[in-house]
């Protein structure tokens, strides 16, 4: 199918899934009630549920699902590694450590935004640390060192955070663990606007880097010969994709698998041209996470399943299916020597 057809289909899917997200939840609502609420009519409780609870949540799922998929695709190009995903460079470790510290020190008692701010601060610290380690004296970034540094910094943060948890009380530990599994439950409109403010410019800027990212996948030397300022592209791609990830993690905790699976799925369906891969990854990620959130809040209602669990349970089999079909399609071609 041509890329434009895919884009149209996915955009439509985003709208449909958004509406579905308004309709389904712990409290049963009819479609009529949902539309009435959107028009500002009907029962005040229904309006509250639809407009103050479900709508911002769906919007957040779109932003974060799209952002994570987009940054996952970018990291895969940057690190030239199909196993790369947004958290591979220590961002989730840094964010989780910041969040745990905020909880353990009781900062969240006095400031509502203490938790996301601390998570963001932790993520930024991880980003700067990893970039610092991987940059040589003349500011060149070695992506292999980047990968190693990211893994090591992430491990350090995880160990530190485990230590803090080990001396914290039960309520702190439970709150921390729940946060780390990811949740869209705390999404309200002000958070949605903030995440939009951080994410959308970064997302657009990354999509404009599609051609240089295509070239990076060929190799840094060839990319240079084809006109790319390789060091600058690496740096910008790293910073923007990291910030996009950090914004998502600060708002919703660590939601895994989206950044790994969605870009792969899109690549298997439409190919590896980043001009197509990036926007389609965003759309597909938005659809995926919104659906996952619907499942997370309805399957065991009133309890919510952590969304990171749903993305793993749903995403992994889906991805394996996709992989099998693509391997089957390719088995016909031979390699001559």
């Amino acid at each position, binding site marked *: 199918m041509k890329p434009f057809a895919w884009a149209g289909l996915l955009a439509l899917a985003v709208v449909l899934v958004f509406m579905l997200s308004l309709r389904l939840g712990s409290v049963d609502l009819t479609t009529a009630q949902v539309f009435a609420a959107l028009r500002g009519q009907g029962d005040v409780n229904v309006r509250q549920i639809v407009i103050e609870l479900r709508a911002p949540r769906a919007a957040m799922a779109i932003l974060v699902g799209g952002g994570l998929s987009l940054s996952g695709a970018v990291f895969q*190009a940057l690190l030239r590694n199909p196993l790369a995903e947004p958290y591979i460079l220590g961002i989730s470790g840094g964010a989780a450590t910041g969040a745990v510290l905020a909880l353990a020190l009781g900062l969240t008692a006095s400031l509502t935004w203490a938790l996301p701010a601390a998570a963001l601060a932790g993520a930024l610290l991880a980003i700067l640390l990893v970039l610092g380690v991987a940059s040589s004296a003349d500011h060149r970034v070695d992506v292999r060192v980047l990968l190693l540094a990211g893994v090591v910094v992430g491990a350090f943060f995880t160990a530190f955070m485990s230590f803090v948890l080990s001396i914290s009380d039960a309520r702190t530990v439970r709150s921390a663990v729940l946060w780390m599994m990811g949740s869209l439950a705390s999404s309200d409109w002000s958070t949605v606007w903030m995440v939009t403010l951080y994410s959308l410019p970064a997302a657009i800027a990354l999509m404009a880097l599609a051609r240089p990212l295509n070239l990076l996948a060929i190799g840094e030397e060839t990319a240079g010969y*084809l006109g790319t300022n390789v060091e600058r592209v690496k740096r910008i791609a790293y910073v923007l994709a990291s910030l996009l990830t950090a914004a998502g993690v600060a708002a919703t905790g660590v939601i895994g698998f989206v950044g790994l699976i969605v870009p792969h799925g899109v690549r298997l369906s439409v190919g590896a041209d980043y001009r197509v891969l990036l926007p389609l990854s965003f759309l597909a990620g938005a659809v995926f996470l919104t659906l996952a959130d619907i499942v997370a809040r309805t399957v065991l209602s009133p309890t919510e399943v952590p969304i990171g669990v749903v993305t793993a349970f749903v995403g992994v089999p889906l991805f394996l299916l996709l992989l099998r079909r693509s391997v089957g399609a390719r088995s016909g*071609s031979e*390699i001559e020597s």
Partner: protein
Amino acid sequence: MSMSSAESPALEATDLTVHYPNVPVPALDSVNMIVPKGAFYAVLGPNGSGKSTLLRALLGMVPHASGRARLSGQPISDWNRRALAREAGVVTQSESVAFPITVRELVAMGRYPHLGALQSERITDRAAITEAMRMCDVGDLAHRSLSTLSGGELQRARVARAFAQEPNILLLDEPTTSLDIRHEMEILELLRTSANGGMTIFLITHHLDLAARFADRLLLLDRGRVAAEGEPREVLLEATLKRVYGWPISISNDPATGVLHVTPLSATSHPSQDRAPTPGETRDQTDASSYKSR
């Protein structure tokens, strides 16, 4: 746009030296060479003589270089990357592609230096891509994934990409190693035709014979130094080649076509040649000389 005039050479190196840290021997040692515009210039030499380093240094890709390198009359450090990519196309020895893309997508990358970030391919770009694929005989492979290609097909696709750039100068580093006779000849004849049409060709090759046949000028490197430069019949002398390659080579001139033939002689006729080289051996012209591989 470059500031080259009709007179300035396409490529020029003055005292070009590359000294990697912690390596005692320089990779390039005071290399001086001039590639005239529109020439078919072939670079020869044993493994490790610095051919690839020379190409990269000419394009400003080697940070440890000293001396001067100029492209179309302008120092290489003054070139903007994108403008350079429109002026010169490069085919490196090998590439590893991280993700499977199609041949057409690969060749289309040759047009990137001509396109703005948000610009789509125009008709002229599509024409250049199609023509480049046709010239390198990969048109039928346009929608094949790179992972399904043979080594030779991939090499031709990469040459096509360089042609799609529509460059004035084409630098190639051993682009025919995986090609069968037909495709190798096709590429070389393509390069020759392009040179005749005004494109400057800078070709690194280890095929002495084909270099002799197709090139206008040769450069022979020996352990980072220029051993000889000039027209094929000036450079391809038996004594020079034997010294540089450490193997006896016979040069003959085909009276009918004037083409030089380069024929390596066999070991059995020269028993002194089958002693293995030892490190630190003195470089004596009459002995079998050692060659150090990098």
